[in-house]
């Protein structure tokens, strides 16, 4: 999944185009975000072991109805949101996806579909394009079916994705290839980059797994080696240079090996929110992993703008007042906002602690060692993501 707010500006400001995300006047005052992620459902035919959905998945019966999502879309457009990303789970598992895209288009929102692609037919994709869909992002688990179908836990998935990617371009829709990378597929990166070029994609996201929720449970099976990371850095740099003007590559590093923490979500409650299948308004898609925060729903009597501006969960980690040391006196405190709250919570038990990805965290050394020992664990079997709480990969798979 793309971290929108961390997207490197790709357009120079001297030619009359300024990248709005970087304009202080909008983001710094907690103005309404430009783009919102809508997780329409947690249902998904794939079972990726690093799924970014929470361990406790919303059931179909809890999902917002068509009428409720339409009301959300109208409200988002009304308060100044410009783009929506339809995501999941698998957003096309919703029977009303075409209707929702059409409604978003009607109220003036720019629409992006973030999909596994395996449920799409050419007719359905055409309907989506005709309804006003502006952009398609397809996830790939590898560059060939043996690795890819095993990671996704879905036979025939890879072949279907290639087909849908082709249809996407035939329908003249811009395509982003999203490749989630980990120890067991990083060796395919050069081929994945070539696959994105061959599919005529505009963008490629090389996103190393971030370790919360399902991915944290599968950390030993997914964590790359430090050597793999160095090789990946080199490959991405080389490909960016070689493919300038052909393919834009966004790159997310695995932050256990980083020196500085990421400015997660552009800072809590500053530039981003998402809405969960059951209608909760969240500062990030992993936020529900932090216990003790009460996230308000669009089903409450409060408007989305009110929840964004005033709810306790959004205000808890805004700004710098909540910070403890070493963040509080750190010169980078408004650069990275202490990293990721979900990771701080997962690894230290307190979301207000410094993200251990930071060298200034007392735990930094130990998570670096943890990553190295996970990478050398020899554990390759996955725990697949599903509504049953996860299913271990069978040994004869």
């Amino acid at each position, binding site marked *: 999944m793309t971290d929108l707010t961390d997207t490197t500006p790709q357009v120079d400001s001297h030619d009359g185009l300024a990248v709005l995300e970087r304009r202080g006047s909008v983001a710094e005052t907690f103005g309404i975000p430009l783009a919102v992620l809508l997780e329409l459902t947690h249902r998904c035919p794939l079972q990726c072991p690093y799924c970014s959905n929470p361990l406790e998945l919303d059931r179909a019966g809890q999902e917002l109805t068509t009428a409720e999502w339409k009301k959300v879309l109208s409200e988002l457009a009304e308060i100044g949101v410009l783009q929506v990303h339809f995501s999941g789970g698998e957003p096309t598992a919703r029977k009303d996806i075409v209707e929702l895209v059409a409604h978003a288009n009607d109220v003036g929102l720019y629409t992006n579909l973030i999909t596994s692609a395996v449920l799409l037919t050419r007719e359905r994709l055409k309907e989506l394009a005709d309804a006003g869909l*502006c952009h398609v992002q397809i996830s790939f688990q590898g560059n060939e079916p043996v690795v890819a179908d095993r990671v996704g836990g879905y036979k025939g998935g890879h072949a279907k994705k290639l087909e849908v990617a082709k249809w996407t371009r035939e329908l003249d829709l811009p395509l982003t290839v999203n490749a989630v990378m980990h120890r067991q597929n990083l060796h395919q990166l050069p081929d994945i980059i070539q696959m994105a070029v061959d599919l005529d994609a505009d963008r490629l996201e090389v996103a190393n797994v971030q370790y919360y929720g399902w991915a944290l449970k599968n950390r030993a099976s997914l964590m790359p080696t430090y050597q793999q990371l160095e090789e990946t850095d080199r490959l991405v740099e080389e490909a960016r240079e070689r493919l300038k003007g052909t393919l834009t590559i966004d790159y997310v590093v695995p932050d256990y090996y980083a020196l500085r923490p990421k400015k997660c979500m552009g800072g809590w409650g500053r530039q981003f929110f998402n809405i969960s299948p059951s209608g909760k308004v969240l500062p990030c898609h992993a936020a529900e992993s932090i216990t003790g925060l009460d996230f308000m729903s669009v089903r409450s009597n409060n408007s989305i703008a009110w929840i964004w501006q005033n709810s306790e969960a959004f205000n808890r980690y805004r700004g710098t007042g909540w910070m403890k040391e070493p963040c509080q006196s750190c010169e980078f405190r408004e650069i990275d906002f202490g990293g990721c709250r979900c990771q701080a919570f997962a690894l230290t038990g307190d979301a207000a602690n410094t993200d251990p990805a930071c060298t200034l965290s007392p735990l930094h050394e130990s998570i670096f060692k943890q990553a190295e020992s996970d990478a050398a664990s020899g554990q390759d079997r996955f725990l697949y993501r599903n509504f049953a709480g996860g299913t271990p990969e069978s040994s004869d798979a």
Partner: protein
Amino acid sequence: MAPRHIQVTETSRVVLPRHTKLKYDETRQVWVILAPERVLAPDEIAVEVLKLCDGARSVAGIIDELAAKYAAPRDVIATDVVAMLQDLADKGFLTEVRETTS
């Protein structure tokens, strides 16, 4: 498929591709270009030129209109407009209408 890379000349008829939208953002009181994963804020001149990129007018027609409107030398306007449009095209915000419009 609409062409990705185009060479802008005075005979080109340029238009924003369907996945790129120019709109006025009422909330922030600025014109914006909406593109995949990006929101850009064009300046006043770029907005004025982009509004004329309707796929019906040729670039020469756009230059004529602007030269008349600002009572400016046509060759100066022409150089600036072609350079600006080429730049926008290189970034993927403009494509060309190649078939004849009825």
